């Protein structure tokens, strides 16, 4: 019984978001921590948003696994929205959320960036660090991004990325 209740509760939470077909399964996958990329076979493209039909050819789409697919980093942001003060040190900005805009073959997602992998990149570019805004800390084209985590927390979807160097 308890288990059922839990399931129902989760279902309710999901049904709050208007859903049908692919969208519903997409959310269901997200809840389990997997990212299912909406993909159109006839176009050979990743399509956003995750609905039943492709926006280009209007044929049916399917959801595919995003495992090991690399994304391109477009922009990094430092958010102090939840902090009162900004604490900087030589190792990095201590108390901010690092946000990345990442392009996965045409699908752009906004999510947080894992701090450990980020600090490793910062370590290579210490000089630029003091004037971080308006200056790119490092060349984004040399960085690949992977989706590390995703899920639903407090009724909101979240994505977490990690940076991977290409060399």
């Amino acid at each position, binding site marked *: 019984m308890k288990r059922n209740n839990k399931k129902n509760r989760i279902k309710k939470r999901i049904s709050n978001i208007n859903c049908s077909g692919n969208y519903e399964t997409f959310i269901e996958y997200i809840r389990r921590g997997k990212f299912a990329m909406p993909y159109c076979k006839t176009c050979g493209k990743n399509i956003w948003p995750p609905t039943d039909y492709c926006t280009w050819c209007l044929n049916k789409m399917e959801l595919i696994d995003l495992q090991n697919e690399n994304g391109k980093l477009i922009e990094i942001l430092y958010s102090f929205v939840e902090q009162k003060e900004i604490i900087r040190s030589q190792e990095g900005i201590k108390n901010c959320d690092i*946000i990345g*805009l990442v392009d996965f073959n045409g699908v*752009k*997602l*906004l*999510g947080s960036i894992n701090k450990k992998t980020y600090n490793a990149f910062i370590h290579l570019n210490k000089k630029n660090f003091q004037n*971080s805004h308006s200056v790119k800390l490092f060349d984004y084209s040399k960085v690949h991004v992977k989706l590390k985590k995703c899920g639903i927390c407090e009724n909101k979807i979240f994505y977490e990325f990690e940076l991977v160097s290409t060399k």
Partner: protein
Amino acid sequence: MRKVSIFAGETSVFRKLGYNTFTNSNIRNKNNVNHYSNSKNYNNYRDKKPDKISTFNSRKSFDFIKNTKETNGKIIQIALEPTISLLKKTGFPRELIDAVIFSSCSSDQYLSSIISEILGIKPKISHRIDNLCNSGTNAIISAYSYIASGLCDSALVIGAELYDSPGRVLSSDISRGQFNLPIYWGAILKKMHMNKYGTKEEQICTIPVNNYLKAKHNQIAINHGKNLTLSQVMNSKLLVEPLRLLECCLICEGASSILLIANDKISFYKSKLGHENLRKKISSEDGSNLYNFTDDKKEKSQKEIIPICIKGLGQQNNSASFGNAFDTLFLSSPARKAANQAYEMAGIKPNDIDVVELHDAFSILEIMAYEDLGFVNTGKGGRFVEKKDPNIYINPRGGILGCGHPLGATGIAQTVEIFKQLSGTINDKYNSQISYNMLPDKSSKKNTSLHKQIEIESHDRQIRSDIKLGLVHNLAAAGTSASILILEK
């Protein structure tokens, strides 16, 4: 196609209640509201008997209202304020209004019909339009098309919004994950503009300063009478690097209404002004009308009314989610396409524009608007700020940064401002004629005044007689949708 003119327009005072929801909801949870974060306080709160009368003017009660989903039809109350002022000022007979269009992102239903009922109008066409931040101009465009097609001769467009409107966050855009507040895309745009075109931070930060300067003399603005210096902006709290607190607009509550008529019927309507006797008798016999339209006998009528023609329109929508619109935001933005449509329809060039109201929800959007509207080449918006071109009068009312941003009312308030600038009625004093129904605050212990009259200091604003062409620029949801209006004297 028939030509359409703006006959009259009115905007209520934008009020700030609550907090800045456009940038952040967490600030509120941490700093302002104690009784939910602290369990002890919460228990105290629960033990109390529920208030029978909900009080609107205290922050505490606002949270109570929000959590119990109690609305009390306050949005109608806000919307009535400028509309009644407009009808009284002009003396426009209500029997002759053919369409009522309501613009709002609120979740209340059937608003246009409710407000027509209260105002005693029986329109042919009446519906609500919701398109997030550019609902207002969208409503004007629909009203325009009804009149131009000959379906009706006059249309009343009303926009209103509350501070806790659901329109401030586009929850369906799941590509943004938990960062779905508008401030994140604002910061991305600012950072990319700085990196791509070398725009300096000082250039971007002068925009709020310029807007506050104009809002200082604007009695309806939320920042009325406030001063702001460049160093204040540069040193304000960093929210999302590189975007700062004072570069963001404030969500507020407000309303605005505008009356459109067919150009070929101007003289007919002018001759009918002030003839509302029949309606008055009916309303007094029924006793059904909520508000009395008694004191509009006074002249008001024909003398100063100068209708302003809508010369060009343009609207473009590229997508709904930020991710899909991102590629086109700098070089082929919806605003650029909509502006080209409008210029083509009006048969003018960007340099002909004299006065302009821009959608500057964030400071960077104003710089991008200069580029989109063709005032400067792409990437040179930053230098345009320093130059201070005297030929174009930018944001006479203080823009969204100065005035505040009630989503559904913004587009209409912008159009009303340009209308007033062109018709020279900018210094007409706005007095809210209905007492705004504020119930007493229990914390003040003095329940003496049930109805607070809103008192406004007024400063005379600069009138420019040489302006002939005006433009309204209105965006929605990260610039994915844009609409442009061009007005001519």
